[in-house]
């Protein structure tokens, strides 16, 4: 339960009340612990004096102890993290959880669906695929948010678009003037999904977003012919330890922290409790 110390080395706006925090681990122990981690794993980040909260790691292992987190301001810990100055010390505890089984997805066509801040833990998935582009099949990224100011990693769109065998589609529930003028998509991610209609043939999907989005995306994917065992998702739950002790994050007899946070939809469907 004791975090490693990290220094905030970078901080930039991703959207309204959403920031990307770059943390450099300062101790050799911490660097070693985070030398390798998988897309979809998470870590607790401490605003010392306020508390810690879990966040999906938004970076891929860099070898230099640099970690990135996409953090939306929704509570006291996230507000405190947002207000930190570059150079200040934070705590980092992890990596925790199972992560996405990237090996199982090799040679498959992959559809990544991110909603709002849910895009943050998907960024390492996209990076991982782009870094080893030939290992995977076609990559379809569906990126959505309630409004344009909540879309994350917009500065990486060009990188994603220009990658071979990769397509990016973006939509917002409600666009502003600028968005409309530029002819951007408006509508829910499920509508976009219906339009793009990726083929379920040799394909998997990876979804992260708010509970209602997960629910309806699952239904739409099902209509498109995807079976539950082709759909992967990462779930959010309130938690305080990340090591299945605090009892907080259970969904039925599963703990989101150690049994997840990544689950296949057929597993989720078998849970006694739902995330809705």
């Amino acid at each position, binding site marked *: 339960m004791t975090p490693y110390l990290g220094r905030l080395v970078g901080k930039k706006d991703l959207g309204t009340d959403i920031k990307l925090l770059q943390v450099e681990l300062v101790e050799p122990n911490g660097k070693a612990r985070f030398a390798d981690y998988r897309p979809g794993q998470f870590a607790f980040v401490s605003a010392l004096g306020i508390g810690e909260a879990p966040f999906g790691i938004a970076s891929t292992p860099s070898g230099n102890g640099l970690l990135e987190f996409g953090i939306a301001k929704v509570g006291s810990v996230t507000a405190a993290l947002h207000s930190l100055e570059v150079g200040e010390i934070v705590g980092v505890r992890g990596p925790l959880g199972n992560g996405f089984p990237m090996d199982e997805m090799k040679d498959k066509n992959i559809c990544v669906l991110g909603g709002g801040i849910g895009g943050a833990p998907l960024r390492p998935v996209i990076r991982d695929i782009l870094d080893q582009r030939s290992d995977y099949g076609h990559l379809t990224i569906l990126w959505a948010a309630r409004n344009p100011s909540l879309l994350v990693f917009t500065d990486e769109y060009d990188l994603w678009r220009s990658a071979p065998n990769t397509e990016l589609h973006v939509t917002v529930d409600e666009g502003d003037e600028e968005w409309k003028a530029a002819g951007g998509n408006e509508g829910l991610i499920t509508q976009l999904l219906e339009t793009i209609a990726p083929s379920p043939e040799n394909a998997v999907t990876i979804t992260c977003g708010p509970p209602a989005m997960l629910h309806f995306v699952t239904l739409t994917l099902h209509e498109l012919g995807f079976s539950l065992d082709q759909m992967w998702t990462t779930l*959010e739950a309130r938690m305080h330890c990340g090591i299945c002790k605090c009892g907080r994050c259970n969904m039925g007899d599963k703990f989101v922290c150690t049994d997840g946070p990544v689950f296949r939809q057929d597993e989720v469907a078998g849970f006694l409790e739902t995330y809705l």
Partner: protein
Amino acid sequence: MKYISREALQTWLDRLANDVTLIAPRLVDDILLYQSVSSAREIVLDYTRPKMSAKEVVLPSSEPILFVEKRGQEVSLTEPSSGAQIIFGLRPCDAHGIAVLDTVFVGQEPIDLNYARRREAITLIGLSCPQMREDCFCTSMGGMPNDPTHFDVLLTEVEDGYAVNTVTDKGRTLVDHLNLEEIKGEPAEPIINETESVLAQEHWPDLFADHYWDLLAERCLECRMCAYLCPVCRCFDVQDQVTQQGISYSKYDRLRCWDSCTGTNYRVVAGGHNPRATKGQRLRNRFFCKFHYFPVEYDHSGCVGCGRCIEACPVNIDIVEVMRDISRAFNASQISNASPDAEKGVTA
């Protein structure tokens, strides 16, 4: 059997109180609690069950798990240490509760170092119950009023003194030098209640969607008493608390404190969504945790049958009644599956 006289016990306890932190049943404003004592005189030996379990000795209601010191931009973290403690007069159900907590916190990787550190320095000296209270049901949960299993040493009252059962090496080091006399005979068997049958964990999911939970929860006040009195309920919350704040020097404690799944906002996630939005869902979680989730995760029930929640619940949510209702409902559903016309559900 090994035997210790009442007088010798008093002398021994006085010495223990002098050497380490001795925790024992003691009256605090007429309420019996496991609390630290400074001499044997303070210890109550004739009692049924302290109001609170001994959980708070191994998992305090609020404890620092990390000390943070900040000097300018330099931060140092220190983990708390823990001294030797002996719990004397622990009832078998409470020792059983600690054993279940051990399974949760140190029985599975990754272990909880904070718990492990404290627990290692704790010795359990038990006192058998001569009989069960009306609301006790330890025998239904795999325990016995004189079960030595989870103790280091267990005493059982006999004429003029106590039979001493040394269970572990930790207990032996404590007892060996007392040169206890060996006498003939065995302590009397305790008087036990009729055993309740507990529905096997694998059948509980059949009743997950039953309307029963909503009806049961109607009268639930959503306080946390049952969880806080429970020897097994272990949910906690973590937050930092500022203990000193200055421009160049600050100190914080990272605290972990008890929490309970019956609380309204227990499961609320950032952004406000509550996946366990109804009282029925929350109360159901409490019982499923004990009788299904715990058995699945830890191969052990999350209830030891101490009966505290039964005694204390101000609106008579009675765990034994729930166990009976659920067993009855399951049996009824088995019958109704055989004959489709029969009524279904607990409430039928």
